[in-house]
């Protein structure tokens, strides 16, 4: 009965997903959709050309569905995935639960990677993932508009508010700033650089909920003041809306600009090509704390094709392919040397600044419950954003919920 139960559970939960892979020369690669998909697609195409006998299947999923597929697969030991693309915030859970293969046992990983991206790929001294996309939350502003109104690069979030207010008042049809207000991961990642700059945090180094502090309240109050400077409907804005607002000249400042989105800023689709400066986030009480959002490649512990998977990962993270990916798809690399590569800098003028940001990047808390903590925080941030809760009440309630989540 127990076996039947497990089987039924697996069938129900994995409805529509692949059947377990059979050990043979094949690869099942589960990766992200949207801007990340062309990079993996290109690598699959090149790897397939070099290895025509390997049967490769590439899955393209949104962030949430990808996490669910990988987590359910790991729990059920479905052996359905050989190469998994992981957000760095999922990595602590996957590594701590023993769901990933120690890359040291399958030939290791050559290359000098950005340290912050490497740090989030390790657990207990072992390397469980390869940094694949050197994503980092940057800050973007229209240098022409700021200069026109007598502002330099904002050093603090208070400077940002001042500049945004003046531009909004004086420039017809241009919002002062734009951020991602949709609940969940987007609003949280918009808020965290502000919180950290104020000296606040969500979870302390020893794993305690620490959101109900005066520093966090100041940060949230300031973050909420952004709404009056943003386009109407910012509560529903995600990456596409934010990028469009900047590229079409409808907003002067982007509170966050992920480096994988920035690739098209100077392209033909942009009405403000060459006018947008991409730099590390401002500080406030503390210095800038740019947020790391690296994407990693890992081999699930139950993969039946580990050697082949490791070979593919080494292929993808080789200098020539990392450069190719950056040039052709705009996905930033993770190998340190490439940020000063002349071809790449010629195409992406902000790469040296991005390397500086990556070197001081702050990762989100390395806890296995982050997915849940982030959702709780996102819910309460949005309740505050739409005016249904005062900042202090939102933080107090969120803190209590986060403390409960951390205790489970």
């Amino acid at each position, binding site marked *: 009965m127990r076996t039947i*139960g*497990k089987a*039924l*559970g697996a069938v*129900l939960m994995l409805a529509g997903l692949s059947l377990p892979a059979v050990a043979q020369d094949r690869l099942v690669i589960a990766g992200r959709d949207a801007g990340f998909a062309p990079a993996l697609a290109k690598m699959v195409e090149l790897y397939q050309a070099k290895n025509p006998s390997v049967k490769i299947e590439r899955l393209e999923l949104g962030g*949430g569905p990808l*996490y*669910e597929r990988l*987590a*359910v697969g790991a*729990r059920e030991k479905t052996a359905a995935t050989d190469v998994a693309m992981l957000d760095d915030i999922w990595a602590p859970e996957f590594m701590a639960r023993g769901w990933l293969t120690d890359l040291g046992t399958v030939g290791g990983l050559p290359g000098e990677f950005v340290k912050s991206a490497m740090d989030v790929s390790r657990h207990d001294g072992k390397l469980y993932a390869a940094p694949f996309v050197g994503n980092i939350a940057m800050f973007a502003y229209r240098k022409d508009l700021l200069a026109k109104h007598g502002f330099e690069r904002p050093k603090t979030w208070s400077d940002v508010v001042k500049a945004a207010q003046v531009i909004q008042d004086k420039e017809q049809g241009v919002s002062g700033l734009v951020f991602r207000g*949709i*609940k*969940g991961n987007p609003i949280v990642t918009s808020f965290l650089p502000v919180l950290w700059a104020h000296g606040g945090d969500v979870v302390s180094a020893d794993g305690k909920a620490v959101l109900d502090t005066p520093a966090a309240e100041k940060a949230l109050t300031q973050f909420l003041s952004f709404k009056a400077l943003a*386009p*109407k*409907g*910012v*509560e*529903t804005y995600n990456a596409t809306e934010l990028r469009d607002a900047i590229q079409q000249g*409808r907003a002067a400042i982007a509170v966050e600009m992920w480096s994988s989105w920035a690739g098209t800023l100077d392209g033909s689709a942009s009405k403000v090509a060459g006018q947008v400066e991409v730099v590390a986030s401002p500080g406030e009480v503390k210095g800038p704390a740019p947020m790391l959002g690296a994407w990693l490649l890992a081999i699930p512990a139950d993969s039946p094709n580990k050697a082949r998977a490791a070979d593919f990962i080494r292929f993808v993270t080789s200098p020539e392919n990392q450069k190719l990916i950056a040039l052709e798809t705009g996905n930033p690399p993770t190998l340190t040397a490439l940020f000063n590569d002349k071809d790449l800098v010629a195409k992406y003028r902000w790469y040296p600044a991005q390397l500086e940001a990556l070197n001081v990047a702050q990762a989100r808390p390395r806890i296995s419950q982050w*997915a*849940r903590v982030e*959702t709780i925080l996102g*819910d309460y941030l*949005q*309740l505050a*954003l*739409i005016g*249904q809760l005062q900042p202090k009440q939102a933080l107090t309630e969120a803190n209590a919920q986060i403390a409960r*989540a951390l205790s*489970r």
Partner: protein
Amino acid sequence: MTASRRLLPWLLLTPALLIFAGLTLYPLGRTLALSLFATDYGFENAKFVGLENFQELWDSRFFRQAVTNTVVFTVVATVLEVAAGLGLALLLNRAFPGRTLVMTLLLAPFVLSTMVVTAIWRAWFHFDLGFLNNLLRAVGLPGVPWLFDPNLALWSIVLVDLWQTAPFAFLIIFAGLRLIPQDVYEAARVDGAGPWRRFRDMTLPLLAPYLFVAALLRSVDSFKLFDKVYAMTGGGPGQATETVSMFVYRQGFRFFDIGLASAAAVVMIVVAGLLAVVYAASLLKGAGR
């Protein structure tokens, strides 16, 4: 009647009963059992917590809001869709030039996938660039914050649902309308009954079973609302469009808090059961009349 003859119906029913037990009763029983445990997946390492998960749901402002949203959406969407379906059926029951074209256009939204529908409506609802607000501004009216006003967001989703699924209610009701014998109306006309009287005393009673079926099917579907909310608002702004299905999904598949998700699912089953009782009572009352 011999024993073997008495047993024959049960023997024939056995495969169906086994499938029903395996696919319906077992998951239901398992969900009920899991709702009494704190567990991040199945029963391995699960800790019995009795009714604690239900207590937590009761204390959760998010869950209470999700239940309210779900019930409001179900009732409002069902009533509007059946009313719209009835109106359209009456309209299209008359011959007029271009009726085939109108009917084709009317049915088009129903054959689209929900993801396509939500993509279309997200673009239409855009505050600055959306078709709906541009239309309003063209006649001198201000733009409407369709999806980001917490007081409007759920109604905006009702509007999308109405657009997509009123044609379904229309199909059922239209089929019923076509089955009403025309000589009944002719007799009523001879007796001097006007259009309103004919509609109230003849069309509505004769259509009642079809209206009932349309309402039943639409309310069951509305109660499970997930995809439109997931794609259009993610449950926001705030908790304005969060439904019980979304709550269960997030607890179960994002947080793997299977105990709490199961408890929420049990509550959902109970509420759905209450709806079913209301329908069954109406059905039996109708049958007894």
